[in-house]
């Protein structure tokens, strides 16, 4: 079994047959986490508990009673999900050192299925960002910065420009999770997706990033950014694995009133052979300003791929999508202002030493605890919620949101099964370039292709598609109908198989993967 293998057919089988033990898997991942520490993908590594969980899993396998495919599988969780006994920081001074007394429902579900929780991954502070560069623990580095593919193609512009200044960002805000999956330090990771925070880093790191339908997976225990758009995201190395994770996470949670009431039936993805009954929509508005020619070309190549295979490919229009970002700005900051109100230094988290009065203690606590990005959003959000502004901004934005959602409804009603779009405007930017712009500008640019799916609550997935001229991953996005994850993932799986996205070639992985790496150039996906 290799660290790069798919869960269902390969890793699970290897574990069952005893070719590898959960402890061995866990140890390999932990070793890899150590040797890729420079990526800064993890905020906390829970080595001790992970090894204990692996040991327990091993016992179950020995007894011949594993809990399922995920038993013994090392996973990582974004550090904005509560984990009992393991620090949950949101990459913020406000929650540094905060240990939650409870597990998020998704974390609990993974543990209940025997998964081994390796640690908590890095992010932008409180998930506000699109680079994973704005957290208190520093930026996450994209593993592809260190890949053979990137090194070969990116010739330093000047001799002084070494690796140190050439590394590219992961995208965000679930950059730590994307980097963790991409660098083989875990088999799957949880992210969160409010405006693209799972799909964007997935695209930049060359992994699968699934944002399920709003309400399909419990948000209980996910520290919220925008409650009405947040969805736990799934990051894996192949579409099949995403389906496995989805199957164990989805369904009603009595602790989250916004989850669906119906039971969710986990599914295995069929191998599609005939796509002639499929209708793929190409929304013309996603031909957005700033879209790189490289990605545009890839996008139309993908459309052709479907067309040539017999699928119906139609151009569709989502006229209100272009208002998505401004609309999101209002709704997001308003909810942020509200959600962040609880961080006052009294019950938990950072508390300032300033104590001249309660109000000054509140103010100092929040000034010291939050970074500029968070404070900026709180300020704008409170402005939009003021009595005199509420109708003008918040209510209007809600109406626009409805229009955006309705666009999708119309398109799907017209017979389109799945929409195909780019996930990002370009491949990952070098860190030095990325930080030239402020967080707000970047978020507005980077979320542009992913954001509308959150507005409408629709499921969407990034599928790694090809490498750019610079040797960096580029992904395409499929957006599906509400609660039609099976159809969406089936199409994504077919596409994944066609494009044969290359495996990252990392020195660190080579050393830890017992040579298997050499033999499996691209066949690592089940």
């Amino acid at each position: 079994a290799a660290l790069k293998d798919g869960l269902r057919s390969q890793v699970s089988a290897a574990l069952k047959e005893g070719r590898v033990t959960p402890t061995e898997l866990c140890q390999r991942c932990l070793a890899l986490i150590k040797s890729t520490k420079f990526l800064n993908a993890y905020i906390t590594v829970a080595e001790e508990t992970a090894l204990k969980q692996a040991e327990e899993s091993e016992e179950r396998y020995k007894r011949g009673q594993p809990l399922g495919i995920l038993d013994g599988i090392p996973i990582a969780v974004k550090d904005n999900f509560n984990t009992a006994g393991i620090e949950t920081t949101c990459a913020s001074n406000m929650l540094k050192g905060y240990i939650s007394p409870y597990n998020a429902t998704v974390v609990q579900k993974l543990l209940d299925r025997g998964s081994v929780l390796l640690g908590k991954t890095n992010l932008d502070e409180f998930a506000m960002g699109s680079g994973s560069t704005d957290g208190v623990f520093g930026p996450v580095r994209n593993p592809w910065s260190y890949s053979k593919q990137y090194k070969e193609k990116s010739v330093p512009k000047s001799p002084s420009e070494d690796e140190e200044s050439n590394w590219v960002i992961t995208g965000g805000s679930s950059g730590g999770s994307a980097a963790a999956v991409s660098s083989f330090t875990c088999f799957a990771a949880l992210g969160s997706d409010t405006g693209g925070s799972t799909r964007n880093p997935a695209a930049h790191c060359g992994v699968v990033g699934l944002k399920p339908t709003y309400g399909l997976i419990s948000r209980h225990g996910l520290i919220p950014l925008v409650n009405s758009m947040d969805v736990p995201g799934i990051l894996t190395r192949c579409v099949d694995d995403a389906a496995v994770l989805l199957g164990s996470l989805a369904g009603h949670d009595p602790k989250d009133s916004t989850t669906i009431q119906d039971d969710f039936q986990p599914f295995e993805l069929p191998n599609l052979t005939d796509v002639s009954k499929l209708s793929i929509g190409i929304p013309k508005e996603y031909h957005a300003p700033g879209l790189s020619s490289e990605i545009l070309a890839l996008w139309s190549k993908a459309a052709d791929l479907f067309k040539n295979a017999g699928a119906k490919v139609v151009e569709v229009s989502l006229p209100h999508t272009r208002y998505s970002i401004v609309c999101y700005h209002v709704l997001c900051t308003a909810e942020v202002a509200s959600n962040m109100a609880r961080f006052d230094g009294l019950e938990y988290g950072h508390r300032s030493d300033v104590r001249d009065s309660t109000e000054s203690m509140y103010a100092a606590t929040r000034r010291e605890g939050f970074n500029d990005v968070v404070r900026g959003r709180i300020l704008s959000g409170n402005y939009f919620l003021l009595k005199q502004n509420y109708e003008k901004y918040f209510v209007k934005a809600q109406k626009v949101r409805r229009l955006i959602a309705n666009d999708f409804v119309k398109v799907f009603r017209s017979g389109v099964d799945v929409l195909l779009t780019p996930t990002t405007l370009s491949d990952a930017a070098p860190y030095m370039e990325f930080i030239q712009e402020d967080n707000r500008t970047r978020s507005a640019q980077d979320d542009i292709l992913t954001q509308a799916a959150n507005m409408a609550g629709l499921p969407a997935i990034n599928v790694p598609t090809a490498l750019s001229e610079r040797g960096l991953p580029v992904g395409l996005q499929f957006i599906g109908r509400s609660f039609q994850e099976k159809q969406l993932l089936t199409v994504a799986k077919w596409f994944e198989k066609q494009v044969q996205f290359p495996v990252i070639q990392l020195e660190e992985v080579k050393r830890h993967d017992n040579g298997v790496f050499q033999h499996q150039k691209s066949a690592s996906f089940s």
Partner: protein
Amino acid sequence: FAARGCGVFGRRARQCGAGRPGPSPGPFPRRQRAVACNARGGAVPAGKSGLAPWIPVVGLEIHAQISSNSKLFSGSQVQFAAPPNSLVSFFDASLPGTLPVLNRRCVEAAVMTGLALNCSINKKSLFDRKHYFYADLPAGYQITQQRVPIAVNGSLSYSLCIDNKMSQMVTKTVRIKQIQLEQDSGKSLHDDTRCQTLVDLNRAGVGLMEVVMEPDMCCGEEAAAAVRELQLILQTLGSSQAVMAEGQLRVDANVSVHHPGEPYGVRTEVKNINSIRFLAKAVDYEIQRQIEELENGGTILNETRAFDSKLGCTVPMRDKEGKQDYRFMPEPNLPPLILYDAKSLPANMNHQQVINIDWIHERLPDLPSVKREKLVEQYGILPEHSFTLLNEDGLAEFFESVVKQTQMKPKRVIGWILNDMLSYLKQHSITVKESPVSSFLLADLLNLLEKKEISSTAAKQVLAELWKGEGKTPLDIVKEQKLELLQDQKELEQICQAVIDGHENE
């Protein structure tokens, strides 16, 4: 949880005269004019200026704590006077990532209350967040129903007596604007000597029904009578225990005065009222204060004032968060609250997941007004007696139970209940349930009286003995103290003969 720091949370005025200095010399000069209006709803006569009379306007906002096992959005228990912070779930303490889950019982209680107050129940209501920073509000916002509350447009009829004469009762109606479900806050305990505030979150998140009454009242007595009737209704429904002393019923009064034909005056909000008696006092004081203020050429500030029960006056409380903007926003973690009636009830819906308004309506208990009517009709007692019976918890049931066990006419029984029993209970501040004289014992006693075995005077003597609660029956006491009436003619003759025989010489 402790918040330290000098002056922390010291915003709430604690004594009369604290806060802004103003033309508020104290209650005393006003005392003699403290009758703001009478129950006929008349305007207050002009003051010394001799100009047009004043019309006081009183509206109430009442917070009734819902009687339920657990809180509005969490599973923590609801219990009065539990050890501090012993009933706090992760959600109540607003731990990051926790979400509200609506308590079905609280919704049912609000629907019951809405129906009992003749409201239309909104089949779809919404929850909102109301933001403000306060130590006992851990999330920094309260979940309430600002836009679309669960019940609207109701009315409450209440009666009060004119000129304090029980025989002259009038019935009035106050419109109910709305009933909204919302969370209670925690409690802050200010320790001035150590400059710190202690926060108890046991109450944080307990379900409240806020009942908003239209400004249809005009004096303290009316306000008090309306609240008393509401209290009885809530207790009858069981939707709230509505004990004011325990904070289960909290009343804020909005008071203003104006001249006839003019628009309503600037209103003040009076808080910190913790009994019905104080409600009447606070409202009347505030009306009088405003009239004097205006007649002396002053103005009324739109402010929050606290009632000081020791001094019997209202004092400015805090800068009516006048400029405070609550930044209301829809609560995104709760879907709209959908209620059904028999018509709209979906066939395939799990009954545990739906609330049927009609079902609740059919099961409403008799409301106090209906109970009173029935008592008057069934037992032929006076209407005002029916009020007294219902005003005392358990007294009506006690009365009915006595009536059932005795041959005495209800009209006579009521005298014993109201004059003897009630005055004894009041004197000793005990409840009907705690009474050492059970309905059985009283009935027993009244039967002796009815059968003319004892005289009415003797009966009172026996009752006085019964209050001691020594486990004796009325008959025991009668025998012990030889209180029987002699009805046997022969025995009487014998006694007389004996007396005569003993005094032959006289």
